[in-house]
């Protein structure tokens, strides 16, 4: 009889361990419980040692006979288990280099890329998989919330969350959405429309969000961001629209249209500083049209979710800086 996984609260143990080959699972379980709970990523690279990423460091796991060298078969089994032996059903996601797992975790993959007419057709002979554990941190956006919500005006300022990968952008976005939806900021609650293209923010399964995104949040998932944002704008009358990892020209055009329609926008983007995104044409366009009024720069200097600075994009000045605030 299969164990009842619903009683396990740690997302790594509940959602990810059942997908791993027995040898890898045993090594992960041999880690101290506290270290397991702090694990952010598990990496299986064929022919190389099994690695876990925690506290900003990638560590190799060792068994009784030294570091465990991952086999190609173990990588294959992990991918098969993650896709429910249905690689074809995840074709579009795999083309973008990842699969979203139940619970909102992401499995990134690398291997031989098949290109047809200059377009990535698929990734075959997968040699590396990186499983990133998605954890909810209620209150992650508490420090940022006063800069995002204009309580007297009962409006939300369009905000861009900016950071390199693994600095807690998605976690902060999720908590911002939840806070706005719940009315955490002195009771000012808003209707939020979330376009969750990769199902990472709300981790919706059969239409129901698995992560807490609040009672006033409508989730559109599996849909291209640019189309989804405009769809929600027309169909759900949101006060705020949110999406993760914007960057394309289509995204820029859609965001510009939304903010001109009087709806606030919350989004995340990759970049260590504002200068990084200003160098990208599509993001430069977004900044120039004044689609966002706030930009929150995150890092992992004091752990994931460290707020480095909050900028007022209209004046170009730091609204909050110098002092480091943990999110």
């Amino acid at each position, binding site marked *: 009889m299969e164990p009842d996984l619903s009683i396990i609260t740690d997302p790594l143990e509940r959602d990810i361990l059942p997908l791993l080959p027995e040898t890898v699972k045993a090594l992960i379980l041999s880690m101290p419980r506290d270290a397991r709970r702090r694990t952010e990523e598990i990496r299986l690279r064929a022919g190389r040692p099994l690695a876990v990423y925690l506290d900003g460091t990638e560590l190799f796991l060792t068994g009784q006979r030294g570091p465990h060298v991952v086999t190609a078969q173990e990588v*294959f*089994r992990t991918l098969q288990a993650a896709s*429910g032996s249905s*690689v074809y*059903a995840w074709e579009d996601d795999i083309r973008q280099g990842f699969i979203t797992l139940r619970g909102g975790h992401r499995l990134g993959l690398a291997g031989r890329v098949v290109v047809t007419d200059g377009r990535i057709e698929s990734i075959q002979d997968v040699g590396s998989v990186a499983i990133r554990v998605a954890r909810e941190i209620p209150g992650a956006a508490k420090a940022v919330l006063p800069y995002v919500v204009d309580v007297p005006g009962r409006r939300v300022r369009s905000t861009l969350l900016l950071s390199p990968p693994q600095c807690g952008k998605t976690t902060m976005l999720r908590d911002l959405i939840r806070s706005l939806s719940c009315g955490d900021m002195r009771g000012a609650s808003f209707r939020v429309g979330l376009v969750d293209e990769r199902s990472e923010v709300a981790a919706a399964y059969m239409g129901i969000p698995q992560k807490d995104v609040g009672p006033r949040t409508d989730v559109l998932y599996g849909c291209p961001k640019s189309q989804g944002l405009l769809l929600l704008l027309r169909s759900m009358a949101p006060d705020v629209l949110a999406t993760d990892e914007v960057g394309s020209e289509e995204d820029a055009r859609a965001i510009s249209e939304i903010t001109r329609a009087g709806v606030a926008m919350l989004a995340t983007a990759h970049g260590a500083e504002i200068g990084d995104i200003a160098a990208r044409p599509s993001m430069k366009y977004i900044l120039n049209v004044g689609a966002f009024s706030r930009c929150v720069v995150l890092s992992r200097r004091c752990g994931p979710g460290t707020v480095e600075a909050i900028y007022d994009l209209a004046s170009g000045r730091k609204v909050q800086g110098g002092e480091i605030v943990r999110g």
Partner: protein
Amino acid sequence: MTWPPDERCRVVRLCVVSLGAVKLVGAVLFVAATTSIGFAEARRVADKVQFLEEVDSALGVLGTEIGYCGTPLAQALVRAADSSRGFAGTMMQKSAAALSDSAGSTACEVFRQALQEVRDMGLIDDMPFSILWAFSSGLGASNRNDQMRLLQATREKLRLEAARAREQQIRESKLYRYLGLLGGVAVVLALY
């Protein structure tokens, strides 16, 4: 006490008649048994053909689910099982259940396990067995186009095997039936 001669004759006659009746009943039972063995063997040959045809049909449904709907494999196998009767349906159903129940198992493993059970029942010969065994290694492990090609190639091979099995059935079905009946009669006559 001694029996009178007439009574003794009557008892002997009765014994002889009874013995004859027992022999007759035994002969009839023996012929019935050999005949049923012959018919069972003929049925087994027919079942092999039917199994291959059912698997071909189930793979057709699987192809539709994978190629046109992109249905996840566990669900696609359930739909393929629903559309086919007999042991092929059972094989698909078992594979689907095993795939849904154990997150760590691959489609190849669960399909091979179900296939092995079918083989243990004597429903599949070596050749179609090895075709399906090879098919399972690629099941669910590639993109939609490759899956469709794999299914197409497997179905073509299975159809050839089904045609071969059908010819064998025509040849051997009658043989097994007659052999069962006539073999039983021959043994009975020889013993009489």
